[in-house]
């Protein structure tokens, strides 16, 4: 087999990996080509190891890699024949091709039917309030489409107030802080080596790190659109926020959340998240989060935000285990429950009850005002 065949095969293999969601860059392919030049090509195990290392395949992508490797990389003839069975044959279920489930319910103006009475009350009474003040207190499930559009504007402003915290990193400051000898000394050169004033460094301000787990089951539908707008605005302020959606299974939706119009984002999500507005298995979903994503996304500085009504139909023991693991690792766990806005509500749903001991803050999320208050929680 010629070098050319080998390279062509490598390129096809890398392409197949990309189609299966394994991130491989051109530079990685070059590294792989160099690595293959250094190992015994007849030794299949050795070739596999060299590819794993030089393509920098993450541990979580390893099973996808192995499946493709055994299918496409034949030891005797790496050129030509191998990839003829195209990897397109088996797209990952649940991604863009997945069972499309556009859930019209989530996209409809949620409270269009339910909110008649409250609407009338809000619009008619209380002349002292500005329209903005009214919007702030209006429960999401009573909002009309145009209310929502106005609220989105408010939300965009809201996230600018996102609380910040001090990092351990030191940056130059004009105010107080520890002495920075390096800069002080350089500055003293201007005054002939006389230290007239000390330069100082203080701890840098950092935006909080957030991981948001959002329930998208049917029972959350009335709030979904709005909470999503909220998450989008959070992401605008704290760009590294990771977002996961769950109902019966867990999907990482961070890559789909681009700042922009909320409508199209929501449609993309509804199509991409399997079983959108279906049932809930909070316990299993959170357990999956713990086993697949917890280590990489949550550190001792991360605040984990769970947006859910806690109506779980799964095994409470699974939920307890997952909540314990999350609470042990995260800085704090905040559970935002849209139902909590109702004064008659008691967290008696079985899922909610068992999860509460592991939650640092339990807060409502039924209107704009409650979300505003949440932003200050992140800092504390």
């Amino acid at each position: 087999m010629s070098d050319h065949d080998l390279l062509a095969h490598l390129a096809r293999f890398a392409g197949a990996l990309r189609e299966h969601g394994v991130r491989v860059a051109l530079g990685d392919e070059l590294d792989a080509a160099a690595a293959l030049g250094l190992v015994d090509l007849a030794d299949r195990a050795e070739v596999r190891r060299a590819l794993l290392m030089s393509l920098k395949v993450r541990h979580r992508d390893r099973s996808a890699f192995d499946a493709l490797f055994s299918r496409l990389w034949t030891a005797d003839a790496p050129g030509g024949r191998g990839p003829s069975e195209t990897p397109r044959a088996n797209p990952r279920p649940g991604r863009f091709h997945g069972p499309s489930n556009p859930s019209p319910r989530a996209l409809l103006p949620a409270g269009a039917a339910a909110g008649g009475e409250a609407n009338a009350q809000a619009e008619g009474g209380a002349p002292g309030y500005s329209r903005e003040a009214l919007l702030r207190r209006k429960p999401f499930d009573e909002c009309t489409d145009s209310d929502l559009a106005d609220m989105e504007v408010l939300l965009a402003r809201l996230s600018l107030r996102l609380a910040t915290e001090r990092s351990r990193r030191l940056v130059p400051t004009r105010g107080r802080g520890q002495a920075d000898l390096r800069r002080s000394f350089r500055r003293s050169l201007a005054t002939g080596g006389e230290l007239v004033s000390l330069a100082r460094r203080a701890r840098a301000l950092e935006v909080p790190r957030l991981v948001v787990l959002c329930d998208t089951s049917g029972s959350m539908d009335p709030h979904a659109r709005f909470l999503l707008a909220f998450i989008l605005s959070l992401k605008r302020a704290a760009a590294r926020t990771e977002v996961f959606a769950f109902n019966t299974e867990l999907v990482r939706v961070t890559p789909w959340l681009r700042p922009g119009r909320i409508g199209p984002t929501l449609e993309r999500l509804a199509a991409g998240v399997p079983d959108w507005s279906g049932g809930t298995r909070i316990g299993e979903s959170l357990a999956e989060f713990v086993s697949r994503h917890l280590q990489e996304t949550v550190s001792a500085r991360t605040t984990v935000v769970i947006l859910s009504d806690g109506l779980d139909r799964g095994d409470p023991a699974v939920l307890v285990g997952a909540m314990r693991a999350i609470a042990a690792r995260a800085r704090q766990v905040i559970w935002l429950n849209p139902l909590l806005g109702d004064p008659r509500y008691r967290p008696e749903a079985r899922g909610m009850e068992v999860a509460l001991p592991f939650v640092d803050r339990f807060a409502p999320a039924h209107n704009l005002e409650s979300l505003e208050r949440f932003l200050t929680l992140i800092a504390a």
Partner: protein
Amino acid sequence: MQEAMDACAYIAEPAIATAVYLAREMRKPLLVEGDAGVGKTEIAKVLAQITGTELIRLQCYEGLDANTALYEWNYQRQILRLRMSERDGQDPAQLEAVIFGRDFLLERPLLRAITRREGPAVLLIDEIDRADEAFEAFLLEVLSDFQVTIPELGTIRAEHVPSVVLTSNQSREIGDGLRRRCLYLYIEHPSLEKEVCILRAKVPGVSERFAVEISRFVQSLRRRPTGRPPGIAETLDWARALVSLHRDRLDAETVEETLGCLVKDERGARELKRAEVTALLAEAQPAEAAAG
């Protein structure tokens, strides 16, 4: 490579040997990830031992910055020198050349790895995931060119390009830029055979049979769904403790007394109840269970 590593009592799996070989041949840094206690740091130590060179270690922590990692001027000495020369009335230009000379430079690990004269060093950048992204970006620059610019001195190029090993405990995801610049190795927990070999090599006075028994117990412990799985470092601690207690077989009582070496969180220890210890023991001693 594997033989050389064996000689240093490091039982290398083929994957590790291949990674070290490729990293050296391709002159790329090696990024090693894996659970705590699987022997990530040990790779760098053994590599230094094999090549008979110095191991330069940079332990990362949150807030680590270029001053601590790269270089710092010895300000106290510089000021002292200035004060002394004021009396002699030295030429200012000459004075500047002196106080910003190599003698007044404190080399931190990265600069030391680059400027080492006696041959390439092994540079271990440990727990890179603890440092922040800003530092990662800075590191990227150093690792790609192996040169450092100090404004007062000019650019310093590496005399010999060091072998670089980076380790990460995956407390956060390493940026794509840095990952791409490296070769990537994920270390798993060792297999039963490998763990027995390691025990035999590292713990003097442990018999083959006892090593198998200990390894089986630890392997079944790792398969339990809850709690943090013990690493090979913990197995070694445990085996050493058992040997120094003059035990040569496991029983429920011994296990409970010495469990602190193996299970290092309070909840894990509490959850590992007597019944479960007995079950794990039965798995670890299949021959005797069958006999008895």
